């Protein structure tokens, strides 16, 4: 197999060394977090050494139930929420993106601009009217305000991503499909979706990640029952500026909460490899 890209003339050893060195820089903060999560609370800020002088796992054992509710519940809630949001975004955003990228229709440019504009207002300016709207729908205290928008392609970011990606797919494919008598929906499902798998995987990864980390909307909309708290909302309760905090527990639980997203990333990044170059459609 031929190799492509930059740096081919660099000796392999040097290149690998650089990549490893870069990796250490990338990982150092994570290692610091792991080290500190194994320190007693009073050592976290008083020593800058990455290794604990006294090792303890109490941050993990106590942190798991530190809020009076088990971390297991928060993790399950977050996983369910993320799964729904990923499904919602994959379906709704790809439908909208196909229309913007491949079909001609009146007001196309206006609607596209409107879509982009909708992600240009900061959350803090719209959260209050949005909360009032969802209260009017009777959705407060449920996951509906967090999930329904995903099925309605409100995350315009991903529509834009998929539009840009679909536009890198040559149009001759569409034409040949049409010659074969494919309708537009079949064209979308049979040709465009399979060819967009890397972008769909990207959408899935980011939706999962951002939903997993999204704090404020979950805090505001899920209020009403700590049993329905998600991971970020729970993590927000470990450290407080006006009373006793639990930094060690926060670090420990933050690390625990990284495992699912790390797993999700590893699972989905395989799909990134399935571009045109490997699906054989071009052949």
């Amino acid at each position, binding site marked *: 197999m031929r190799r492509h890209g930059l740096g081919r003339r660099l000796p392999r050893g040097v290149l690998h060394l650089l990549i490893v060195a870069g990796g250490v820089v990338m990982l150092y*903060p994570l290692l610091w977090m792991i080290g500190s999560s194994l320190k007693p609370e009073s050592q976290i800020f008083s020593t800058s050494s990455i290794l604990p002088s006294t090792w303890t796992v109490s941050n993990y054992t106590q942190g798991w139930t530190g809020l009076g509710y088990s971390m297991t519940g928060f993790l399950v809630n977050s996983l369910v929420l993320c799964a729904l949001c990923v499904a919602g975004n994959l379906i709704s955003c790809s439908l909208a993106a196909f229309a913007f990228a491949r079909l001609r229709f009146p007001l196309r440019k206006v609607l596209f601009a409107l879509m982009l504009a909708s992600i240009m207002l900061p959350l803090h300016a719209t959260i209050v009217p949005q909360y009032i709207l969802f209260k009017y729908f009777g959705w407060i205290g449920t996951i509906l305000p967090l999930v329904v928008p995903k099925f309605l392609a409100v995350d315009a970011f991903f529509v834009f991503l998929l539009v840009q990606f679909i536009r890198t797919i040559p149009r001759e494919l569409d034409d040949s499909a049409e010659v074969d008598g494919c309708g537009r929906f079949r064209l979308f499902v049979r040709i465009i979706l399979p060819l967009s798998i890397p972008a769909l995987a990207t959408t899935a990864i980011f939706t999962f990640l951002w939903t997993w980390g999204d704090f404020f909307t979950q805090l505001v909309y899920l209020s009403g029952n700590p049993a329905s708290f998600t991971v970020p909302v729970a993590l927000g309760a470990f450290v407080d500026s006006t009373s006793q905090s639990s930094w060690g527990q926060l670090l420990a639980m933050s690390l625990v909460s990284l495992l699912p997203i790390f797993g999700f990333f590893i699972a989905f990044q395989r799909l990134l490899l399935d571009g045109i170059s490997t699906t054989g459609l071009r052949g």
Partner: protein
Amino acid sequence: MQLESRGSQARAVRAWLPRAGGLVEQGPGRLPRRKLSRRQREALAAYLFLLPWLVGMVGITLGPMLASLWISFTRYNLLSPPHWIGLGNYDALLHDPLFASAVKVTLLYVGVSVPIQIGFALFLAVLLNRGMKALGLVRAVYYIPSLLGSSVAIAIVWRTLFGYDGTVDRVVELFGWHNPPAWIDDPHTAVYTLVVLAAWQFGAPMIIFLAGLRNIPKELYEAADVDGAHRWLQFRRITLPLLSPLILFNLVLQVIGSFQAFTPAYVISGGTGGPASSTLFYTLYLYQEAFGQLDMGYGSAMAWVLLVAIVAVTAAIFATSRRWVFYMDRQA
């Protein structure tokens, strides 16, 4: 009509019937599938594909957007109804020194962090796209910082790295720099620690570039190899043009994201935008005004000024994109 003598339920049914009947009668006449032109059918299909998005736009997104526009013309403390003051908030922005400083800090942040982040992402995506052992692992390692996000946990890591007697101090001391600035606690350098954070978290654009690289047909490189084209030339002639729609995407998104950058400054400065307002990003100041000072009118005015600014910059990027973005679908 027999239905007329029955109760309210019947009246409701009756009210509904003529319209339904009309639809049934008109349906075939009005929507003669075969008589629609190709263009009309395409438009109809497009709107069907767009239906969920349209419902979301009208039902969820548009209302709060317009509401915030209206609020920007009012004095609104969240607790009692908004009170119309016309352009008062916009006028006050012009005379607010903290607003001016927030604009400056934000422009600096956008200007420095966006090119660095996209440059890093592109470089590493191309590098990591080569077949090599444990590629998945290496990619994951480079992506880990982005998984960490801008959480409270990452904030304390950053403070430990760039804080008093922190890791960075120790490292530069090895190189003989004994009196470094206080980095994160010095108003002159604090914003650059946030730039470093942004550069360190280049994972998102990198993944998008990787996805794009996978879609570039191998045959193009193979043909170039036959022609004996130089690697750098291949990168410029094949990789860059074919990746350009995604470069545009990353550029637009990073610009929007950096203009709106909130969480890094919020968690690292403990919500203050300090030291001495040196990390008071635009949206952090907006948040402080809207939620800290309970002046949502002012915050909303700031939001709409930001929207206009971002629209202008984005429009400029799109305008130039015609020259440097290459779409496969145009080629056909």
